[in-house]
């Protein structure tokens, strides 16, 4: 596990100051590599010589891999490879954009709450907690049903649902930093609150937030996948990994690859983001402790 380097070092030395191993494990680089590949494919999808992901060919349903269709066709005769790559584009778009909303809005709210304290903090925390009172998937389903199934809506909805978590992380980070000497020193030198927030707090809070962001990407891909799997996420015929898995369900007996190829792609991508996010979190958290 990526965190074990730090843990072992700390346990062995038995000291309060944790020395972080600068060498990142192989797993981290593999994961980052995979993310890079998927990102590249998603970004250049249009440029690659791929068949259209939405062209149906009813005569060629569920064909095994061939020269024309490198990964075969799905249950409506559409090219699997193209659908996988275009599906990556959509899953990643939502996967990155939604947590970004959470990061910006939630991060700001959390920092304000943690720094300014008092009534503002109570209001922010209480409002955010109300969102947490709902089981997230149920709320996402309800919101998509009411607002309509589009990729944009999906992004906003999941993004908003991720705000509470980001708020908490930002607030916790801010609380632990706001009392450190360098903040007091800045205040003593007459810096304005805004300047302190931007110059002193932000750089330190941003690190754990980014680590959390990566983990949130993993979760978002899963949530969007779940919604699309039920047919209630990305609207067909646009391809998305979750939707492909859902469509592949009926073909399990004949052509299990239709469900398992997108499942594999999703699993690897989610795992990759989890590994990268977790490694970064292990690095950024202890560093805060020894500041």
């Amino acid at each position, binding site marked *: *596990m990526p965190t*074990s380097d730090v843990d072992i070092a700390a346990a062995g030395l038995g000291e309060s100051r944790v020395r972080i191993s600068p060498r990142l494990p192989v797993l981290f680089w593999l994961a980052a590599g995979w993310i890079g590949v998927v990102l590249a494919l998603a970004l250049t999808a249009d440029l690659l010589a791929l068949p259209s992901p939405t062209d149906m060919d009813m005569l060629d349903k569920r064909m095994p891999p061939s020269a024309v269709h490198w990964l075969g066709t799905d249950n409506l005769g559409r090219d699997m490879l193209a659908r996988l790559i275009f599906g990556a584009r959509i899953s990643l778009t939502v996967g990155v954009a939604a947590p970004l909303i959470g990061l910006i809005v939630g991060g700001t709210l959390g920092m304000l709450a943690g720094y300014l304290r008092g009534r503002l903090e109570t209001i922010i925390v209480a409002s955010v*907690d*109300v*969102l947490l*009172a*709902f*089981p*997230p*998937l*149920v*709320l996402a*389903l*309800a*919101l998509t*049903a*009411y*607002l*309509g199934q589009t990729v944009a809506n999906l992004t906003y909805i999941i993004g908003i649902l991720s705000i509470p978590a980001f708020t908490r992380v930002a607030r916790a980070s801010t609380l632990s930093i706001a009392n450190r000497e360098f903040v007091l020193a800045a205040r003593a030198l007459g810096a304005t609150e805004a300047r302190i927030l931007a110059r002193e707090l932000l750089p330190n809070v941003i690190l754990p937030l980014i680590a959390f962001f990566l983990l949130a990407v*993993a979760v978002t891909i*899963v949530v969007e*996948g*779940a919604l699309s*799997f*039920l*047919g*209630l996420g990305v609207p067909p015929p646009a391809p998305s990994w*979750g939707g492909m*898995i*859902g469509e*592949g*369900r009926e073909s*399990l*007996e004949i052509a*299990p690859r239709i*469900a*398992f190829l997108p*499942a594999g792609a*999703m*699993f690897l991508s*989610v*795992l990759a983001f*989890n590994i990268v996010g*977790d490694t970064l979190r292990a690095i950024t958290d202890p560093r805060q402790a020894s500041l």
Partner: protein
Amino acid sequence: MLGFLARRIGYLVPVLLAVSLLTFLIASLLPGDLAYAMLGDQATPEAVAGLRHDMGLDRPIWWRYLHWLGGILQGDFGRSFRTGESVLGAILARLPVSLELMLLAEIAGLAIAIPLAMQCAINSGGGVDRLLTGVAFAKLSIPNFMIAILLIYIFAVELRVLPATGYVPFAEDHLGNLRAFVLPALTLAFAEWPVLMRVLRSDMIATLQEDYIALAKAKGLKPRRILFVHALKPSSLTLVTVAGINIGRLIGGTVIVESVFALPGIGRLLIAAIYTRDFMIMQGVVLFVAAGFVIVNFLVDMLYALLDPRIRHAH
């Protein structure tokens, strides 16, 4: 103790109110109008206006909210557009199925997590421990619908030993009922066990360092007895609370699992209502589930405070 209880209940009520308000507001997000949605495109403006008046949709929003809330508190969740049945009735009829699923899933999850956690704790830091911890981490990246598909493929399609769908009420056919629940419960359990295992593992590792374990070894007791009686018991408190907290996550999982395995539970009711755009049922289910979620979390908090006096006095 009573003061603590009163304070916590005092916190509970506003949260429930906020939940109801939010649920109501979400419903009002519907573009267009409820009456319009019901009557369809061909409806004449007069018919729509008439229905709107009948349903009280032309009143101000705060009036509608209070009216609706009043109904809820009296047990009237409204009626389905399609079938006309009482929303609350529909929910309650399907509640047992969801509860059975959640219970079996929790049991299965514990049955997997406990032995694995104990193995990790004994082997702490060694090969088995690292392997299992790694597997648990990887497992976190497999969402439950993926597991469902995998299990269906292995057990229903390839091996053909378990059914992929087909629910039978328990009263009718005990064995058939349980058979139908095996795959769904396992799916959810696979989503649960990493979290449970991780918590129990670290708790047991701490327990195994205690002096009383050293004395138990010095007494020459059998390793199994030391593990199960001396080590597991003190750690079980944490496990119970984590299992309780997990129930909230389980609720979200049941929606998917019931859909995939065609179990007539509340989750499936919600999905069906979304497909048929039956907004009354949707609203009712969301409120019911959210309120249930809040209350369960509250009860778990209470249980934890009951078992650990320090929490009571800290507030």
